C-alpha cells in the first residue's frame, strides 16, 4: 500500500509537477517512459514517488519513446491504469503506437508537453508535435496553466477509462511556459482525488487467465472500415457527453469549471481570437484591456482538440464577424492547423465571417500583448469591412522582411 502525501490546499507547482502529482494520486499501476525535454520531470517525479513509497506501481524505463508507448499498450491490455509523458521528437517516434493504442481501445493517458519539431533542433514550446497525433484516435485535452494540467489529468482518466469510451487520452501543456513555470495550484487530498477516478475496472484484460483474449488483430477490407467507423462514431457521439459529465462532476467537487470550448467575452463580440495553451490567458488580459476601451473583442480557447468540438465552436462563433485563428505550429505549406480546423466549422456555420490566420510563437518565441493588440486591431477592421483587410496568413514577430500570404 502506498503512503499518502500531505498536500497544502494550494501548492506552488509547475505544470510537470502538477501532472505527476495527478499520476500519483490516481495511483498509476505502470508507467513505461523515456525522458525527453521538457516533459522529463513528469516521469522523474513518478520515479521519486516510487522511491519514497508514495506509489507502489511499476516503473519501466525503456530505451525509446516508441518502446514507452509499446510497454504502455502491453500493460494496459494486461488490465491496469497506465500513463506516460513525452514531447516533440519523442511524440513523433510514438505516433505509430498512438494509433495502436486507440485501435485496441486502451485507456492510456499521455501527458504531452508541447515542443517544436526539429530541424532545426529546439527544445521550447510550440504545438507542432501535437498535430502529428491529431488523427490517431486519442482524446486530446489542452491545459493553459499548471492548474489545468493537474485537473485535466483526472478528467482524462475518468473519461478514458469509462467502459463506454475506452479510448486513450492526451493532456497537452506548453513546454516550459507551463511545464516549468510555477504557480499556485489548488490541490485535492489523495483520497478525494483518487475517488474521482476510482479503482481501475479492467475489461478484456489479458491477465484474466480464465478468459483469454486476442488483442491487435488483423482486419482487411471486410472488417477494417467497421472498426475504424465505430471508433470514430464513439469519438464523435459518446465522448463529448462523458467529458461534459466529468467537467460537471469536477466542478461539483472542486468549484473549478472547465468547458469543451472556453469562451471569454464573446457574447456581443465583433472579433475574437481562437487559440490554445498559454496564449489563451494572455488573450484574456488583452481582451479585458480592449473592452475597457470599448472594443468588442473576445477569446475562444480550445479545451478539447479531439474530438474536434465543431458544434460548440459554431455556437460560440454566433454573431462574431471576424476571427483570428492563432496557430502555434509550423504551417509548412498550408494554413495553420487550427485555422484549417476552424475553416471547416466556419464554412458550415451559416454566417459570413472573416477568418484569418496568425502563426506565432514557434520554438518558444513569446506572444506579447503588443502582438495581440495588433491582431485585434486588424480583426476589428476586418469585422467592420466584412472582408479581409490584411493578408490571410501572417507570421508574427519574425525577423527580417514581413512574412505574410494573401
Amino acid at each position, binding site marked *: 500500500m502506498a503512503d499518502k502525501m500531505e498536500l497544502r490546499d494550494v501548492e506552488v507547482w509547475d505544470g510537470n509537477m502538477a501532472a505527476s502529482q495527478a499520476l500519483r494520486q490516481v495511483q498509476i499501476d505502470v508507467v513505461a517512459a523515456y525522458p525527453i525535454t521538457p516533459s522529463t520531470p513528469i516521469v522523474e517525479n513518478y520515479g521519486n514517488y516510487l522511491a519514497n513509497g508514495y506509489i507502489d506501481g511499476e516503473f519501466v524505463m525503456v530505451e525509446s519513446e516508441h518502446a514507452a508507448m509499446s*510497454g504502455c499498450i502491453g500493460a494496459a491490455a494486461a488490465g491496469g491504469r497506465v500513463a506516460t509523458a513525452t514531447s516533440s521528437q519523442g511524440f513523433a517516434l510514438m505516433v505509430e*503506437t498512438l494509433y495502436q493504442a486507440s485501435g485496441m481501445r486502451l485507456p492510456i493517458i499521455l501527458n504531452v508537453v508541447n515542443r517544436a519539431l526539429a530541424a532545426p533542433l529546439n527544445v521550447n514550446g510550440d504545438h507542432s508535435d501535437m498535430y502529428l497525433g491529431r488523427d490517431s484516435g486519442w482524446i486530446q485535452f489542452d491545459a493553459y496553466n499548471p492548474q489545468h494540467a493537474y485537473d485535466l489529468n483526472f478528467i482524462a482518466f475518468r473519461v478514458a477509462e469509462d467502459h463506454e469510451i475506452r479510448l486513450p487520452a492526451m493532456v497537452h501543456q506548453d513546454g516550459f511556459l507551463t511545464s516549468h513555470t510555477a504557480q499556485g495550484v489548488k490541490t485535492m487530498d489523495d483520497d478525494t482525488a483518487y475517488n474521482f477516478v476510482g479503482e481501475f475496472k479492467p475489461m478484456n484484460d489479458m491477465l484474466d487467465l480464465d478468459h483469454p483474449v486476442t488483442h491487435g488483430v488483423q482486419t482487411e477490407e471486410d472488417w477494417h472500415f467497421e472498426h475504424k467507423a465505430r471508433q470514430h462514431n464513439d469519438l464523435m457521439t459518446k465522448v463529448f457527453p462523458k467529458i461534459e459529465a466529468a467537467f460537471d462532476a469536477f466542478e461539483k467537487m472542486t468549484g473549478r469549471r472547465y468547458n469543451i470550448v472556453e469562451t471569454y467575452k464573446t457574447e456581443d463580440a465583433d472579433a475574437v481570437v481562437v487559440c490554445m495553451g498559454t496564449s489563451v490567458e494572455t488573450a484574456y488580459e488583452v481582451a479585458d484591456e480592449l473592452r475597457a476601451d470599448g472594443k468588442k473583442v473576445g477569446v475562444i480557447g480550445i479545451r478539447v482538440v479531439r474530438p474536434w468540438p465543431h458544434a460548440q465552436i459554431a455556437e460560440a462563433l454566433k454573431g462574431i464577424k471576424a476571427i483570428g485563428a492563432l496557430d502555434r505550429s509550423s504551417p509548412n505549406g498550408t494554413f495553420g492547423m487550427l485555422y484549417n480546423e476552424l475553416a471547416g466549422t466556419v464554412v458550415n456555420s451559416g454566417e459570413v465571417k472573416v477568418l484569418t490566420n496568425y502563426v506565432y510563437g514557434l520554438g518558444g518565441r513569446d506572444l506579447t500583448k503588443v502582438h495581440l493588440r495588433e491582431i485585434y486591431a486588424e480583426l476589428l477592421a476586418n469585422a467592420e469591412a466584412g472582408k479581409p483587410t490584411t493578408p490571410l496568413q501572417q507570421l508574427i514577430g519574425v525577423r527580417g522582411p514581413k512574412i505574410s500570404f494573401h
Partner: protein
Amino acid sequence: MSEMKKIKNLKEFSTSADRFEGANLLCPGCAHSIIVREVLNATNDDLILAASTGCLEVCTAVYPYTSWDASWIHIGFENGSTAVAGAEAMYKALKRKGRLKQPDREPKFVAFGGDGASYDIGFQWISGCFERGHNMMYVVLDNEVYANTGGQRSSSTPIGASTTTAPAGRVSYGEKMHKKNMMQIMAAHGSPYVAQVAPNKWKDMVKKIQTGFATEGPVFINAMSACTTEWKFLPEDTIAISDLATDSLVFPLYEIIDGTKLNITYRPKNVIPVKDYLGAQGRFKHLFKPENKHVLDEWQARVDRDWEYLQRREEASV
C-alpha cells in the same frame, strides 16, 4: 514455480494442449506452427503471448477469428517484446497490489517474432527488454527471410540465398552477407538462458523451453523455422529439411547459460556435407553452377569454423 510438465512420447506431446489451433492460415508445411505448438505444449502454465507483425501474426488472428486459446497481443512489427514486457510489469504491479483475478497462478510471458522482427526492425526493443531483465521468453521463428512480405533478404539470410532483394542473377550469386549471429549477441546481454532449437529435435526443444520457463529473467530462443515457400521445398519435407540443417551443423543446437557457459545439446552421429542441405532447397539452386563453387566452399568452411568455435567454447566451460 509450478512443476515441469512430464512428457512421455511425441503423440501425447503433440496433443497435450490445444492453445494454438490447427485452424490458421499458415502455409502447408510451415514450421512456425510446429514450433509454436512445441513451445506452448512444453508447459501447462498459463501463458500471456505476444507476436510481432509477420507470418505468424497475420495468419492466426484474422478478425473475427483467432487461433489462440491464451491471451495474445500484437502491436507492431518491432515491439512484440515490449508488449509482453509491459504486460509482465502490470502483472507484477497488480500482484503486489493484490488485484490479480487468479492470484495463485503464475503465467509465463512469451513473445514470438520472425527474423525480420527480431534480427532487424525489432532488435532495439528486444535488447531493451533483455537489458531490463523482464521475466519473459522471446522466441525467434527464424526462417532467414522476410517471408511475410514476399521473400526479401533479412540480416538472418545466409550467404548465397536468392531472395527478391538479393536475387541470384547473371552476375550475382544472391545474398552477399553472412547471417547475423543473434545467439552471441543475445548471450552478450547477460541473459540467463539463450538456446538454439529446431522443431525436428522436439525432445531437445522441449527440454530447452522448459529450462527457459524455469529460468528467472529474459530468455532467448532462436528456433530454426524452415519455410517451404521461400526456401523452396515441398510442404511435406519440412522435417526432412530440418534434419539436414541440424545434421550438417548449419544449424547447430546448443545453449548458453548466464551469457558464458555453452553446451552443445546435439551431436549428429554422421555429419553430412553442407551442400546436401543447400541442394535440397530452391533458394540455393544457383550455387551448384561451376562459377559459384567458391560460395559452396565458403559455406562449408564457415560451418566448420563455427562448429570448431562452439566445441572450443564448450570445452572451456566459462
